[in-house]
């Protein structure tokens, strides 16, 4: 087949100049008088871009409506701020990113090609200042020799301190859009679904598959990312069995509906996870200004399917030539999509550049609406049906030619074509360059699921490898592009109930429209040859990366950032790895592709968060007395998931004043504290005592009934895990407590040891943390308060220190424990949670005559620090019992207990290990900061030896000054020494004196009164 003579001009007699206009609206110069399968010309919508008003129709996307108005310039590129226009008609769009909406709903980086138009839509272009037309940032384009791949590894090195100034400028100069600062007013939902067959993609292949699966009685779910099913049936004219595609589509949809197939449109399957879990996002209300009442803006679907059929279609690839990024360069398939679907003509004088037969469809469609077309075909020889048809219409076709340059900075004005063999050049005026480098299967989901890909040289693309049990790719997604193939594939896959796999990959046969040239690449010429339009990565960047030693495709990707933008290289990855293969002189399959990861297209954080925002970010655990605290002026604090009383300020008090008052009143009178969040575990069984003996490092077998004991639990490596007080209620019945923070962990551990390691022990454990309300009454007057309410003798002989008994408190059956965290005479009351408030109120009333205070965990902490009782900050996962001064508790002669063996590690016997001490400020009044490092001499040269650190701090109610607990090398051998608590982040250096950690009542006599 020969091309037309080189001197054929566009104004030849057989091609007429385009003259038709949309007579209903002169402001849409590119909207055809009729046509547009998805638009409703009866419903006009108005919208704004950068404050300027336009009109469109229901069914338009923002891109189609802008094209109808002849808008060429919609964006500025990421790095070089080059003018950019609309490139495609789908999710692969790299250029036309806009900010949609305003306020709390503002969305940056939205593809105009996917944004459904609604009345009042507000859009703003991004990355340009002061305007799209005149962007100061374009100076980057002039400085581009300095901004090649990896420039930030090589520039801005000196002086190092100036980097922070450069960074601010760089951040402002690059980037795409800005996120909303206000709260998002919309709701988002999560939904779960199960089905037997999930079909991804509602084009002809997917529809045929869904229909066949439904006919065979399976439960089918079909998702499609578009607002309507049909895929490319809307974008081209097709016949199925001699009937128009639209008819086949309508009939198929009716059958699916009556078969009960669940259909989700506007729904993108973005991630394919283990065990056939598909993550999808449904843009439920993105297409309206404000979501309807009670509707979420978007839904995240987690769909578990027995089988997945991937009918995800294909994406057209561009050709690479100089200045291939100018506004007015578009994908050829997109040009005909806009024609058929929206009735929009993207250009009147079109140069179509191609290396395959399929693009000639666009030429046919353009000629039919009387646009002027010239075809430039990279191939020297070709002989398909489609090129013949185009030639017979008198369209000039130049073979063996490529684009040398594109003229027109803010919009294409012309091209210069060069013959590949002779080098001869020719100019054409045009307002649109339609490019086609052939189609590649959309195999992202297949790859995410671990599917292998096979390179198919006939289409110069990867196709999915052999089908697996769980999923199969069909139609264009498998490289079979013909409509009949798609439908046949779908029927076969849909019928295949058992999911049998084929042994071999059935590679696509070169059918009509597929015949491809070898390369998609440029022939050279001045100007940048873009690969990744969104990240401004050019051919020379890939060459540079290779020169600098980045050979692996994964390295080239990261060094150049190609394929790392929001389009994830959908129109650039293949060309780049093809170039890399050429540089490495290896075939493309050896170069391979980069790893495919979710999401396929961007997913909003709102969809991911779903309903778990604000108050619902985490579950809130409230104690049984929560209401009482709220009614009595409490200030709350978060303790894990629990909401706990922090302090109860009286008029004018801050936290320190309140805690001082609460603490003093408790030490001299009586105080009441809600300790319900403490972990509680019920342990029963003939081997319960033996179990406790193994789980704790101290001795348990001989604990008398009706007594409590402090227990220390170690990890397998000998480090302290947790502590608590465990009581023997009966021979085979114990009540264990843990720290609040470790309650869940300890419960899981007990179950682990009983089920896995020691299944022979006859023990049952039950978590009862929430079943018991716990309250602590502490202070010299505490017995007198309780005596008014308890139905038994709690005198010192009848109920000594560490006694435990079941009894009634204010008539409520419960348990009384004489244990003390504060170091005063103290008790803990447990009643069933539903009676917690009643028991609490009874205690409050009984305590009034003794001026009882209610105290929160600020005071709880201050009192235990005064006593030197260890808690979370001391049990930090690095301390042993010896470190904490509790070495005597470890009964090494027990045959079995957790941590026994590893306690013998040499490192744990190191005398220099930090040990528990107390600290007070040398000046008698300064606060010591928790986390401070302890050092001997502030004037010593850096780096200094750290002797330890401050673990817990408090203002001592008893002593009237700040105190602290610390872990210090040398421990109490340093008692009386002056050291320094250093906190360099805040420039603090405080002189402190080392003391005993037991600041108050060191012999503990108060607990025995």
């Amino acid at each position, binding site marked *: 087949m020969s091309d037309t003579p080189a001197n054929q001009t566009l104004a030849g007699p057989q091609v007429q100049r385009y003259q038709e206009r949309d007579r209903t609206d002169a402001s849409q110069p590119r909207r055809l008088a009729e046509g547009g399968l998805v638009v409703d010309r009866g419903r006009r919508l108005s919208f704004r871009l950068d404050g300027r008003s336009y009109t469109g129709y229901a069914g338009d996307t923002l891109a189609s409506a802008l094209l109808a108005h002849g808008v060429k310039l919609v964006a500025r590129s990421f790095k070089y701020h080059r003018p950019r226009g609309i490139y495609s008609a789908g999710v692969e769009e790299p250029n036309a990113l806009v900010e949609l909406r305003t306020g709390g709903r503002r969305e940056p980086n939205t593809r105009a090609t996917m944004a459904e138009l609604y009345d009042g839509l507000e859009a703003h272009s991004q990355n340009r200042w002061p305007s799209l037309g005149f962007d100061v940032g374009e100076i980057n384009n002039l400085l581009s020799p300095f901004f090649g791949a990896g420039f930030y590894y090589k520039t801005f090195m000196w002086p190092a301190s100036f980097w922070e100034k450069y960074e601010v400028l760089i951040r402002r100069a690059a980037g795409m859009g800005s996120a909303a600062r206000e709260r998002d007013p919309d709701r988002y939902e999560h939904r779960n679904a199960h089905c037997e067959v999930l079909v991804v993609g509602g084009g002809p292949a997917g529809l045929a598959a869904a229909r066949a699966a439904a006919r065979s009685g399976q439960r089918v779910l079909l998702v499609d990312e578009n607002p309507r099913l049909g895929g490319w049936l809307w974008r081209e004219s097709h016949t199925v069995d001699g009937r128009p595609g639209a008819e086949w589509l309508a009939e198929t949809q009716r059958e699916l509906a009556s078969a009960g197939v669940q259909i989700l449109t506007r729904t993108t399957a973005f991630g394919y*996870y*283990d*065990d056939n*879990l598909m993550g999808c996002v449904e843009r439920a209300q993105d297409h309206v200004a404000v979501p309807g009442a009670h509707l979420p803006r978007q839904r995240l679907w987690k769909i*578990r399917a027995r089988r997945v059929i991937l009918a995800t279609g294909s994406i057209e690839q561009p050709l690479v030539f100089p200045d291939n990024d100018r506004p007015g360069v578009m994908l050829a398939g997109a040009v005909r999509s806009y024609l058929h679907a929206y009735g929009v003509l993207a250009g009147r004088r079109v140069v179509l550049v191609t290396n395959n037969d399929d693009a000639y469809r666009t030429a046919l469609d353009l000629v039919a609406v009387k646009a002027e077309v010239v075809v430039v075909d990279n191939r020297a020889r070709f002989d398909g049906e489609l090129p013949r048809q185009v030639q017979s219409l008198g369209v000039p076709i130049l073979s063996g030619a490529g684009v040398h340059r594109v003229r027109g900075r803010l919009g294409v004005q012309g091209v210069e074509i060069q013959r590949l063999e002779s080098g001869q050049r020719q100019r054409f005026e045009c307002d649109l360059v339609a490019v086609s480098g052939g189609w590649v299967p959309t195999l992202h989901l297949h790859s995410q699921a*671990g599917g292998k890909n096979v390179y198919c040289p006939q289409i110069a693309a990867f196709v999915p490898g052999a089908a697996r049990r769980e999923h199969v790719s069909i139609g264009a997604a498998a490289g079979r592009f013909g409509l009949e193939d798609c439908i046949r594939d779908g029927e076969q896959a849909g019928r295949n109930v058992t999911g049998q796999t084929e042994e071999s990959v059935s590679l696509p046969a070169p059918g009509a429209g597929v015949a491809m040239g070898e390369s998609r690449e440029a022939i050279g010429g001045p100007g940048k040859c873009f690969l990744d339009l969104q990240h401004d990565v050019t051919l020379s960047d890939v060459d540079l990366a290779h020169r600098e030693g980045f050979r692996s495709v994964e390295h080239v990707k990261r060094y150049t950032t190609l394929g790392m933008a929001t389009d994830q290289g959908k129109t650039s990855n293949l060309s780049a790895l093809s170039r890399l293969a050429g540089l490495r002189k290896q075939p493309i399959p050896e170069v391979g592709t980069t790893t495919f990861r979710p999401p396929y297209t961007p997913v909003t954080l709102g969809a991911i968060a779903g309903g778990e925002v604000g108050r619902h970010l985490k579950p809130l655990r409230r104690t049984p007395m929560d209401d009482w605290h709220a009614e009595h002026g409490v200030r709350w604090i978060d303790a894990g998931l629990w909401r706990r009383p922090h302090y109860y300020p009286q008029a004018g008090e801050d936290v320190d004043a309140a805690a001082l008052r609460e603490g003093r009143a408790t030490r001299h009178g009586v105080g009441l504290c809600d300790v319900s969040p403490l972990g509680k575990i019920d342990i029963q069984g003939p081997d319960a005592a033996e179990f406790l003996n193994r789980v704790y490092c101290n001795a348990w077998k001989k604990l008398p009934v009706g007594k409590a004991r402090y227990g220390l639990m170690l990890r*397998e*490596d000998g480090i302290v895990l947790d502590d608590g007080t465990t009581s023997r209620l009966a021979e085979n019945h114990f009540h264990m407590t843990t720290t609040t923070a470790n309650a869940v962990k300890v419960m*899981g551990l007990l*179950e*682990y040891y009983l*089920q*896995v*390691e020691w*299944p022979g022990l006859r023990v049952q454990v039950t978590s009862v943390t929430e079943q018991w309300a716990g309250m602590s009454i502490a202070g010299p007057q505490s017995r007198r308060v309780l005596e008014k309410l308890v139905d038994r003798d709690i005198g010192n002989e009848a109920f000594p220190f560490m006694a435990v008994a079941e009894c009634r408190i204010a008539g409520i059956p419960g348990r009384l424990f004489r244990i003390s965290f504060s170091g005063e005479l103290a008790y803990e009351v447990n009643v069933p949670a539903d009676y917690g408030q009643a028991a609490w109120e009874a205690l409050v009333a009984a305590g009034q005559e003794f001026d009882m205070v209610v105290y929160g965990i600020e005071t709880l902490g201050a009192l235990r620090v005064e006593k030197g009782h260890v808690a979370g900050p001391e049990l930090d996962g690095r301390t042993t019992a010896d470190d904490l001064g509790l070495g005597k508790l470890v009964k090494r002669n027990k*045959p*079995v207990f957790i941590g*026994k*063996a*590893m306690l*013998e590690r040499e490192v744990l016997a190191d005398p220099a290990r930090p040990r528990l001490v107390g600290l007070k400020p040398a000046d008698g009044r300064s606060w010591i900061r928790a986390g401070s490092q302890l050092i001997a001499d502030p004037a010593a040269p850096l780096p200094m030896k750290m002797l330890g650190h401050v673990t817990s701090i408090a203002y001592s109610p008893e002593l009237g000054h700040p105190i602290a607990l610390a872990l210090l090398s040398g421990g109490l051998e340093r008692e009386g020494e002056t050291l320094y608590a250093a906190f360099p982040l805040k420039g603090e250096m405080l002189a402190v004196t080392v003391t005993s950690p037991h600041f108050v009542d060191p012999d503990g006599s108060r607990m025995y009164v």
Partner: protein
Amino acid sequence: MFVIHCPWCGDCDGTEFSYGGDASRQRPAPDADFDTWYDFVYLRDNPRGPHDEYWQHVSGCRQWLKVRRDVLTHRILATGTPADNLDEVAS
């Protein structure tokens, strides 16, 4: 997120479970020597393939189970009670 077949509850979503570490080690006798205990506490194999591990069905029956999971593909090859021999279960 993969599906785990709990021997008591059936197929359940992996988010209902909590991971519990390597199940291929044997707890030494209480009087075994220090080095044996050291290996048990600290040393782990790092297989590039099937791995036997413990999971607890925390949002369900709260039983601990043994799971053979291919750490490369996340495919679960077998599940059983802690006492089960997964070689027999898998076959």
